């Protein structure tokens, strides 16, 4: 059976998660993620055609709240937590391109 995940795939996932991994770390996590996926393969081998997909471990649905305004935070308090702010806004590094 082929390896559950390749080193390149791990590098890709790390890049998507903005993680910088050394070569040693890449090897290490390729093994570790492989072991996790190996376990998933065991589960995938079971016949689950009669089992409805699970969206959440609790069998709850429609947990809703009424559309009523609640108090908001004090802006000075919020800005005091920010690494940088200006004119009541969060100051962040320049944004490249548009939001997805």
């Amino acid at each position: 059976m082929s390896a559950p995940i390749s080193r390149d795939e791990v590098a890709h996932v790390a890049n998507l998660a903005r993680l910088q991994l050394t070569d040693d770390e890449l090897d290490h996590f390729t093994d570790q993620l492989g072991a996790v996926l190996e376990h998933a393969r065991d589960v995938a081998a079971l016949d689950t055609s009669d089992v409805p997909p699970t969206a959440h471990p609790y069998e709850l649905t429609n947990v809703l709240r009424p559309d009523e305004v609640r108090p908001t935070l004090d802006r000075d308090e919020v800005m005091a937590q920010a690494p940088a702010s200006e004119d009541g806004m969060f100051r962040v590094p320049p944004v490249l391109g548009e939001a997805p």
Partner: protein
Amino acid sequence: MSDTSAATLPNGWEMVIGLEVHCELSTATKLFCGCPNQFGNEPNTNVCPVCLGLPGSLPVVNASAVEYAMRLGRALHCDVHRSVFARKNYFYPDMPKDYQVSQYDLPTNVEGWLELPDGSRVGIERAHIEEDTGKSTHVGGGGRIHEAGYSLVDYNRAGVPLVEIVGKPDLRTAEAARQYVSELRAIILAVDVSDAKMEEGSMRVDANVSVRRPGEPFGTRCEIKNLNSLRSLGRAIDYEARRQIDLLEAGERIIQQTRHWDEADGRTHTLRSKEEAEDYRYFAEPDLVPLDPTEADVAAIDASIPPLPADRRRALADAAGVEPAAAAMCVERDLDGLALVAIEAGAAPDRVLTHIDNNLAVDGADRLAPALFARLVGMETGGELTATQAKTVLADMVETGRSPEEIAAERGFEAMDTGALEGIVDELIAEHSDEWASFCDGNQKVAGFFVGAVMKATKGQADGKAVTALLRQKAEA
């Protein structure tokens, strides 16, 4: 459907358009927290631990947002299903959590359609619920995004409930795309779930455009953003289709990418290539449980939906004996009720529709009493008023609420008898024999001169159509 844009595409090319429309729901609070859903407040004053993504905070779904989303979905003839929220992961400062909560493989509304005024249907793939993002302002470096020195972020809008309506690629002209957005907007307003203002961003349209030869598979598409008006939408689609055709005819290929419409220079510009990994790693949102409306819930939603524009067009068209498209303006102006009552009271349908289309685009038209309107149309079709006089009386009626009889009497409007009219025409012919000779030779431009002169002589009381007919009759005699 108007086919003007298709006709202008060269060499038998056809465009294929699919629209994605984001609509901000007008709930009192945000989707997952009790912060006010309000436009125009001081930056970062409508925020709390949930919409700031602070550790330990948990989202709870707003019941009204779900109800509004289902109401819109049912108005678009969608099936409402059990749905699951999902995280769309990306790194961008407009979402403080580094993900946006949306719906992915199990959206609330699926497989619907919308009817355009000409009766054609455009498919709706899905209409799902998601949260809006914050707003960034780019500072320094001349204001251009890619030159920005830094960005400032306001999270007042982060977490505001949205419905994203994903249309099928059924549209073939820019005009049809504009009609689709107008119709969608009218439906959103009818079910009262948003103010749907394109210029203020409470309704945002992205257009997927590709070109092909009819019957061939779909071409590679580009997504156009920054369409803030119906005008931009139409212009951007036409520009983009031509750009793609030029490339293909030059033997190049289309690269799938997102492009930004620049209203000032009338072009689309590349934003980013979709060939770069666009991998959002969607997964079910572990902090929220599924939505699973019962049949009774959906039935209650259906019962709350008022007659929709397409139904209203059909009702009026049936009563007036015309095509639904001819009733579109009345419905758009919310005057179809007036038209229906006037027609029922015996007014000539074509005059009713013409007055509403041409003469009632004014404030207060909705206060016009249908019975009086019907009487005015009766006076016009009965020959007591000319078309021009009827228009004047109608304007007065809207202004003052008085009866057409009173206004006509006060203004001294009475039908000109044919004899008097003929006398005036004969006098004019005698005075302007050169122009008359030219008219008799078939110079239609001179017709306007004679009609204008008659109108002047009769202080506007003559019926323009009758004058034209009389002139023709005399020229042929």
